[in-house]
């Protein structure tokens, strides 16, 4: 067994070897290296063909028209292009945007920037189970609302939002709807023909594709307009200039094609692995699953081990590559803003670990992880004054702490 074991597939995935192979065919003189925008020779035509094949592969996974796919450098750029692009284009119509408190930073920081430019943003609270309800969106809608941006699946807790219901609402109110699908594409079904979503962000590297490439879905009917954020040669119908990176795009296309073919079988396997991990740790007492247990992607489980601090737990779990909801290392000492937005107390938020599984995770990996987690949690609880107090029946909420 090769250590550490990678259980952080929500952060990024290793590339599928089949994807890597396709990509290497688009690099050297012998390969498909041309500029897809070159119209005057075979090298350009071949590259363009590869790019358009990939565009169709991406469109196929989410059931949309290939002409609705715009290549970007990743989901962060897609989020920026969608939100700023819509805000700038439709600013005469209104200046109000709705999003949630648990969006990815690429959405939140973009909204903050728009606030500095004079837009007004409503940040919705999720329910304690992490779901942003259509009702909360409905309540926040105003006459001057131009855009709603809600993520499909949350990156930390893995819960799935009902974007179908939110889409019905926004469409009925003639408000555009953007969905960050970086954590859902290739993991759950997305049918853009049925969903009333106007813009959707995708990333390749969460789906066993390469880093540095993503896409933005921009609906044609009814047509969505964007103000470009990157100017230049007018690539991607003027929405995103810059020479197309054939190898990256081919990689993303192949990754999405594989996802389409294998997603359902893979999900069954991942669900079993997740249940195995949960069954292996939940009897440790004061162990909680963060976010709705059922309405989540198969690959994610976010667990709080009460009375154990996250960073020390990560240290004890050095043979596992996982991430912690406690951002102690960033010097801010702030626990995850996502977990706090769920209304969790700070201790629990500080004690959380995100485990995310993927294509190359095995049962042995999970069993090894369970063993390590049990040992680490027991050891750190032996060291924890809070665990002592809990065992002595002290109500920690009633203790007067000497904050620092």
């Amino acid at each position, binding site marked *: 067994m090769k250590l550490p074991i990678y259980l952080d597939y929500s952060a990024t995935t290793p590339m599928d070897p089949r994807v890597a192979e396709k990509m290497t065919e688009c690099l050297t003189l012998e390969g498909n290296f041309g500029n897809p925008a070159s119209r005057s020779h075979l090298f350009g035509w071949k590259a363009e063909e590869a790019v358009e094949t990939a565009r169709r592969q991406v469109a196929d996974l989410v059931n949309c028209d290939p002409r609705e796919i715009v290549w970007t450098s990743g989901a962060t750029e897609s989020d920026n292009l969608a939100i700023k692009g819509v805000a700038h284009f439709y600013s005469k119509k209104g200046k109000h945007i709705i999003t949630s408190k648990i969006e990815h930073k690429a959405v939140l920081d973009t909204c903050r920037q728009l606030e500095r430019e004079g837009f007004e943003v409503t940040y919705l609270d999720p329910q304690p189970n992490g779901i942003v309800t259509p009702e909360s969106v409905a309540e926040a809608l105003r006459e001057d609302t131009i855009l709603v941006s809600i993520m499909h699946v949350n990156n930390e807790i893995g819960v799935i939002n009902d974007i179908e219901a939110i889409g019905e609402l926004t469409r009925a109110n003639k408000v555009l709807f953007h969905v960050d699908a970086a954590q859902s594409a290739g993991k759950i079904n997305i049918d853009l023909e049925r969903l009333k979503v106007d813009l959707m962000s995708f990333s390749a590297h969460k789906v066993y594709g390469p880093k540095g490439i993503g896409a933005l879905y921009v609906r044609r009917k009814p047509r969505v307009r964007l103000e470009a954020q990157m100017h230049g040669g007018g690539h991607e119908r003027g929405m995103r200039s810059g020479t197309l990176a054939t190898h990256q795009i081919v990689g993303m296309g192949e990754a999405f094609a594989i996802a389409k073919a294998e997603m359902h079988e893979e999900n069954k396997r991942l669900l079993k692995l997740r249940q195995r991990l949960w069954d292996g740790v939940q009897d440790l007492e004061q162990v909680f699953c963060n976010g709705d247990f059922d309405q989540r992607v198969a690959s994610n489980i976010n667990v709080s081990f009460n*009375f*154990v*601090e*996250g*960073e*020390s737990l990560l*240290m004890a779990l050095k043979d596992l590559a996982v991430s912690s909801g*406690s951002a*102690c*290392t*960033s*010097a801010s*000492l702030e*626990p995850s803003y996502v977990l706090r937005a769920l209304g969790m*107390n*700070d*201790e629990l938020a*500080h004690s959380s670990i995100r485990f995310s599984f993927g294509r190359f995770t095995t049962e042995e990996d999970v069993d090894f992880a369970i063993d390590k987690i049990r040992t680490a949690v027991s050891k750190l609880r*032996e*060291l*924890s*004054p*809070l*665990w*002592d107090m809990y065992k002595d029946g002290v109500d*920690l909420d009633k203790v007067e*702490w*000497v*904050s*620092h």
Partner: protein
Amino acid sequence: MAYSEEVLDHYENPRNVGKMDDKDQQVGTGMVGAPACGDVMRLQIKVSDEGVIEDAKFKTYGCGSAIASSSLVTEWVKGMTLDQAADLKNTQISEELALPPVKIHCSVLAEDAIKAAIADYRKKNG
């Protein structure tokens, strides 16, 4: 982030983990920090009639540097007089453990903990 060897050593093999009876007249208890901040230290000392720290115990909820800081302090204060222990500075701790700037607060907390334990003992023994 990379931890120093000293931090790793104390984290892997923490010294003097435990709990003393805080009602014992000879025992001083200091508890500092808050769960909300991500670290809580409980440091206890047992003081002889001559005013020398005979034993020290700790339990810490916090990151590896916080655990190491408190573990190190319990090692150091054993055999010290109360006045000597009260003179311990957080900079000595952070130097010994080679703590990076973002972890200095862990050493500050350990200094606060020993001071609180001494204060508790002195209050008890007026």
